[in-house]
Structures are given as C-alpha cells and as structure tokens.
C-alpha cells in the first residue's frame, strides 16, 4: 500500500477528530481571523447608531427557539451590547412560545454586563401568541397587546415606557428569528405602519431575505453566525460570533483541503494501479 492508497483508506475517525478540535480550540484560543463587514450588517449597525440615547426605545423581538439559538443568540448579544453601550433604551419581547426563557436570559446577561437598570433602561414584555395580530395590535397601542411587562408591572408604571404608545415612538424594530416571524414584521409593521424594521435570520434563510433589502423593506440584515460576527466587529467586542467564525473558517478550509487531498490520493492510486496493470501485462 503506497501513500495514496493509505490516504484513500484513511479511517474517517481522524476526520471527525480534526473537526472536533477545530470547533473546540477557538473557544479557548480565539484566532480572531479578520472578518469583512458587508453592507447589510453595516446598515443595521447604523440604524441602531441613529437612535437617541435615553429616548424612544429600540424594540428587539427575540423570536428564536432552541434549535436556532447557536446562530441567533450571538446577534442578540451584540445588538444589546451596542444599544446599552450607547445608553439606548431597549424593549425586548418574543413571538415564539419557546423564546421566553431564551430572550430573558440574553437580555438580563447583557444588561448586567453593561450596568443597565430594569425599568429605566430596558424592559421585557414576554410572550404573546398570535404573531400577526400581535404585530398589528402594537402598531395601534402597545399597551393593549402587552398591558403589563413579563413580571406583571403595568406598562404605565415603567418609567422608560412613558410616552411610548405605538410604533410612532419606536425608531427601530429588530426581529431575530429562525422562522417566518421576521417576515411577519415586514408584512405587519413595515407595510401598514411604515415602521423601520431590521432582521437577523439563519444562514440558510438569508438568501430569501435579500429581496427585502433591495426593496428597502428591511433597513439591515444579519445572516447566520457570520452576520453576528460582522456586527461584533463593528462594535469592537468579539464574542461567540467571531469565535464561531474562526471554527467555521477553519472547518470550511479543512473540508476543501480534504477534498483536494482525496482527489490527489484518488488519481495517485489510479495511476499506480494502471502502472501495475501495464507491468503485469
């Protein structure tokens, strides 16, 4: 067996091991491979940047479920950190029944890090069923859809919600979703109320959302872990997104190298076989 044949017959567990290492190592030693920021991410960042501090709040709808958490949570963290850094008020809600705990933990973690106070700097509205009806209803009066926050405090008693009645007082809505919720925000908040909407979706979904960008129905878009990584670069605070992109880059390149190696081995082995046949003949 020559080197090519050995390569062809390689135990696939070596490949598994390599993948495993490539995923784990960046957790401990982030490589910080450069990430190029693309326009859709830049635009979303600008939109958040335009919101006045301590004034009308950013509405962040954290609509993901556990299955898409790895891709979408880094986005939530980056956006929250960006907003809190600039002292922008934030209202968080969720349209996904399984999103309550996920939204809450991301919000509280970011708020604690940035020293923000509940009620004056941010608040959490919780979950309401009925996607489109919720979005439409909030365009009229947020308090009819969410009479109280997630912990039972009436909205009227939350200082930062003072004067916030409907989308007129919300400069930007961002939906982070692994399902059709992001589209629902476009159809039921952007279309009827002219609300500025941005979105963060999974990498697989991102292609379907590009048309909304070119038609200006979306102000900006984060696609998958890469979108989160780019946002982290923009706010200069690397976290799971950039870390994840390290793993992504390494594994993508690794697979490509494997494909090349496989082909070299394949042709090498075939040539040898032909030679042997020729010799035998």
């Amino acid at each position, binding site marked *: 067996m020559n080197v090519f044949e050995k390569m062809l017959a390689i135990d696939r567990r070596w490949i598994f091991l390599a993948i495993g290492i490539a*995923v784990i190592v960046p957790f401990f030693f982030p490589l910080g491979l450069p990430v190029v920021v693309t326009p859709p991410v830049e635009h979303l960042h600008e939109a958040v940047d335009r919101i006045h501090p301590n004034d009308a709040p950013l509405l962040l709808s954290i609509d993901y479920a556990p299955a898409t958490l790895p891709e979408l949570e880094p986005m939530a963290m980056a956006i929250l950190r960006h907003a809190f850094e600039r002292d922008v008020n934030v209202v968080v809600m969720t349209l996904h029944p399984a999103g309550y705990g996920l939204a809450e933990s991301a919000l509280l973690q970011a708020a604690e890090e940035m020293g923000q106070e509940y009620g004056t700097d941010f608040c959490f509205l919780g979950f309401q069923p009925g996607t489109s009806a919720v979005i439409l209803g909030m365009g009229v009066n947020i308090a009819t859809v969410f009479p109280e926050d997630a912990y039972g405090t009436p909205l009227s008693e939350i200082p930062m919600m003072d004067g916030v009645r409907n989308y007129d007082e919300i400069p930007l809505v961002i939906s982070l979703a692994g399902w059709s919720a992001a589209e629902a925000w476009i159809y039921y908040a952007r279309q009827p109320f002219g609300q500025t909407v941005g979105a963060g979706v999974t990498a697989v979904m991102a292609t379907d959302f590009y048309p909304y960008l070119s038609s200006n129905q979306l102000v900006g878009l984060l696609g998958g872990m890469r979108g989160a990584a780019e946002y982290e670069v923009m706010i200069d605070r690397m976290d799971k997104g950039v870390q994840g*992109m390290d793993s992504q880059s390494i594994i993508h390149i690794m697979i490509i190298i494997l494909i090349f190696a496989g082909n070299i081995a394949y042709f090498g082995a075939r040539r040898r076989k032909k030679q042997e046949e020729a010799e035998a003949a």
Partner: protein
Amino acid sequence: MRREIPLAITFLVGLFMLVDFFVPHHSVSAAAEEMKQWGTIVIAASILLGVGNLIRVHYRKIRRKQDGWGYSITTLVAMSVMLYFGGPWGTIAEGSAFNWMFLNMQVPLQSTMFSLLAFFIASAAYRAFRLRSAEAGLLLVAAIIVMLGRVPLGQLLTRGLPEKATLPWLTETIMTYPNMAAFRGILMGAALGVMAMGLRIILGIERSYLGGEK
C-alpha cells in the same frame, strides 16, 4: 366489498377536496375544513398503533433475551415514566417533570444527533467529491466556491478584485441562477409526478397502501 368501500370513500373524499380548491362557496370550504381536522385526529389516534408496535417488539426481545434486551428495558421504562408524569395524575405544564424530561433528555439528545451532521458532512465530502467525470467536477467546483464564499477567509482571498470576481459574488450568483433553475426543474417534474399519483389514488388505480385483500 372490503376493497370497494374504502376505494369508494377515497374517491368521494378525494374529489371533494380537489373541488374545494376552486369553489369559494362557504358551505364547501366549511365542510372541507372540518374534514381536514378529522385527518389530524386520525393521525393523532394512530400513535397508539405505533406505541403498540414498539411495546410488542421490545417485549419479545426481552422475553427471548435477544442481544441487547437490556436496552429494550430502558426504552420501555423511559416510556412508562413519561406516561406516568404526563398521565391524568400528572401535568405537562411548564416546570413539570414531564416537561423537564422533554427539555433535558429529548431536546439535547435530538440536537446532538442533529449536530453529528457537521462530522458526516466532512467525511462525505472527503470520500465522495472525486473528479471521476466532468459532472462530478462541476459538483466539486460549485461546492468549493460556495464553501469559500461563505466564510470570512474566503472573502479575504479575493478582497482586492473587482466585485464580480469576488467569491461572495460568485457564491450568490451560483445560488440564485443555476442552482435555482435546476431546483425549479426538479420541483416542476416532481409536481407532475405528485399530481399523476394523486389522480391514480383518487381513481383507485394506486392502492398498494391499502395492503392485501384479506
């Protein structure tokens, strides 16, 4: 008779549902909606057949002490525990034992199984993407371009070039045009297959799913 009655039912119900699509009349759509709901109930009720099969297979395995019969006990016990917690004397609300078992056993197990794909996609690429023919070459090249175009490292490789020569642009173009054209073609062909099969089912020509005569 045993064969004719179900076939007649299939024909009538199938035709009615087919017609429903074109008739906006409220009495038709209301009836169609009702019948769709019946379908979901039939499916929900069928789960008992499945669980019955599961119990039978594992019970026999245990009784005959076949290889791995101990694991069969695991299955039956896990199922019984779930049924106990979710039964009439338990609750399935958030925070209940039923919900905890679902969230901390079924969810992590399922998502870990799902994530095995990251390993398998690499091993499949290694052994299957070989330049055996021109067609295989196309598959390989398209895959490599798209893989590179999706990660930052790939973006960096072609950073200085004009936009229409960069990997992200190529990726986008391949996904939007050749990829979409091919998939539309497959879907269109498959749609004809679905409709022909649907027609055969309604007309009772296709009835293998109903099984035997006895």
